[in-house]
């Protein structure tokens, strides 16, 4: 399956004139407005933005769970009309089936495709081996650690050989150490499979470290505020996170996000305003602590 992706360079995501609004009693509320993004075949693209900016909404529309109010989402020229196995998805809450063993979870997509039992068991074992999980194939997810669960989640999404992989803050619930290891694992898998990836996160370091390109979204209603190329060479090493190049990118993205986060919080808090606060906390003012 990776060969096919290599030869035909599939997995071109295109989101054009995209807007999505929810109907409420007070009228329509815009979640995302006037958004264009694209992911080239084999490219790793992240979306960052303040919480509630609609980045997950955008991803769910690409997955086919939400219909855009206007605009269109296409993958390789075909309009997305609903969820399908050609767009694999990894969720923040792992969302493994608790009643299936690790291997049965990985087999699920193949089973839906009608692959015979023996074949899909073998395929699942191979994939689990790549992720270092073969010893846990007969465990139920409940007994795994968060990092292992998410590895299963990624392997399960990749098992059907999708054209694109969509990840919705997949490492958000993991501790810092595990998260770094998971980022490395994801990078390795992505490089091996040459699959297109659309990755949603609120972690700026994570976005820079993983991506070829990062979209930064504005506060609600979300739209694309900036598009940043990440020219760091691959394969990426942990040490790069200390390089001046990385830090410059980080500073740039930070200030973009900070602006939007403040807007999202009401936009009234300014540095001047902070200094005006003089509440004493153990002898320090809030301004000092902040």
């Amino acid at each position, binding site marked *: 399956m990776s060969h096919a992706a290599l030869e035909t360079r599939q997995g071109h995501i295109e989101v054009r004139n995209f807007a999505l609004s929810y109907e409420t009693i007070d009228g329509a509320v815009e979640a995302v407005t006037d958004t264009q993004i694209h992911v080239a075949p084999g490219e790793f693209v992240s979306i960052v933005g303040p919480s509630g900016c609609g980045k997950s909404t955008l991803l769910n529309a690409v997955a086919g*769970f939400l219909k855009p109010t206007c605009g269109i989402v296409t993958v390789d020229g075909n309009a997305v009309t609903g969820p399908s*196995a050609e767009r694999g*998805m990894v969720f923040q809450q792992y*969302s493994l089936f608790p*009643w299936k063993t690790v291997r049965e979870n990985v087999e699920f997509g193949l089973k839906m495709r009608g692959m015979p039992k023996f074949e899909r068991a073998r395929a699942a074992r191979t994939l689990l081996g790549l992720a270092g999980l073969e010893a846990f194939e007969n465990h139920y997810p409940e007994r795994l650690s968060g990092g292992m669960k998410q590895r299963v989640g990624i392997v399960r999404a990749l098992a059907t050989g999708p054209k694109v992989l969509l990840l919705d803050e997949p490492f958000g619930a993991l501790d810092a150490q595990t998260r770094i290891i998971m980022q490395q694992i994801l990078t390795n898998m992505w490089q091996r499979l040459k699959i297109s990836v659309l990755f949603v996160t609120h972690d700026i370091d994570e976005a820079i470290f993983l991506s070829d390109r990062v979209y930064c979204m504005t506060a609600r209603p979300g739209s694309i505020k900036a598009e940043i190329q990440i020219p760091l060479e691959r394969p990426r090493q942990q040490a790069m996170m200390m390089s001046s190049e990385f830090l410059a990118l980080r500073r740039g993205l930070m200030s973009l996000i900070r602006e939007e986060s403040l807007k999202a919080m009401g936009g009234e808090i300014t540095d001047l305003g902070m200094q005006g606060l003089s509440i004493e906390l153990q002898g320090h003012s809030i301004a000092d602590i902040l």
Partner: protein
Amino acid sequence: MSSPALMTSPNQAAATAAPGAAIPPSRPEFSARAARWFRLNQDRLRALLIGTASLIAFLITWHLLTTYRVVFFVKFTNVPAPLAVYASFTKAIHDPKFLMHILLSCRRIFIGFSLAALVGVPLGLIMGRFKLVHEIVFPVAEVLRPIPAIAWVPMAIMLWPTNEQSIVFITFLGSFFPILVNTLHGMTLVDPVLVRAAKCLGARETSIFREVYFPASLPHIFTGLTVGMGVAWVSLIAAEMISGQFGIGYFTWEAYSLVQYADIALGMIAIGVLGLGSSLVIRAAGQLVMPWRSR
């Protein structure tokens, strides 16, 4: 056999052991394991010990209250003593009529409860999945649900041609609503993210139903089955007491009419044991069907 010298050297122990005698497995390790087993199962052993003591205390209290015919608000004058009940138990187990009463009650439970499960579980699943079915069935179910199964007895006698059928119907009704309501509840609690995950992996409607909704609802279905089984017995006994000619409920009531007081307690205990046994069967079935939930 187990002198310290032998224990330290198993080879020597094997060499010197009498032919044919079992070689003791290295004893120190065994006793260490036993000690660990006791430590790990401390809480369970404690519960077992206290539980047994409490049951014995209950029997002794019962014995004392009845032998001294205590009258203190409640009258124990005519209450049978535990030994009298035991005597009538030893007599009853050789009496084919008593066994027939029990078998008949069990059969009624089996038929009524199975029908309730066969109708209630699928109906609950379908109601949880299809809004229209929910909208149609739910109001009727909500109106009928609060009516205790016992209140159905006169109606059931009118509805069904034979007494047997009406008693089974009462049993069915008693267990039906808890099963239906819990199944439906389980369906509403299915994590929508799991449904989305299945869709992303290419699952269609029937597969999602089979692979996600159904297993996700199983814990609640089994809660419903457990509760339903309890209510089934309550309803059955009441129905048998009112309109039966056979069955353990009828046996208990008949014992009262015939002034065989020991048999009243025997009937009650039999009902308790049967109820306990049937809920154990359901729990075992639940563990079998949901291996992911047992540790």
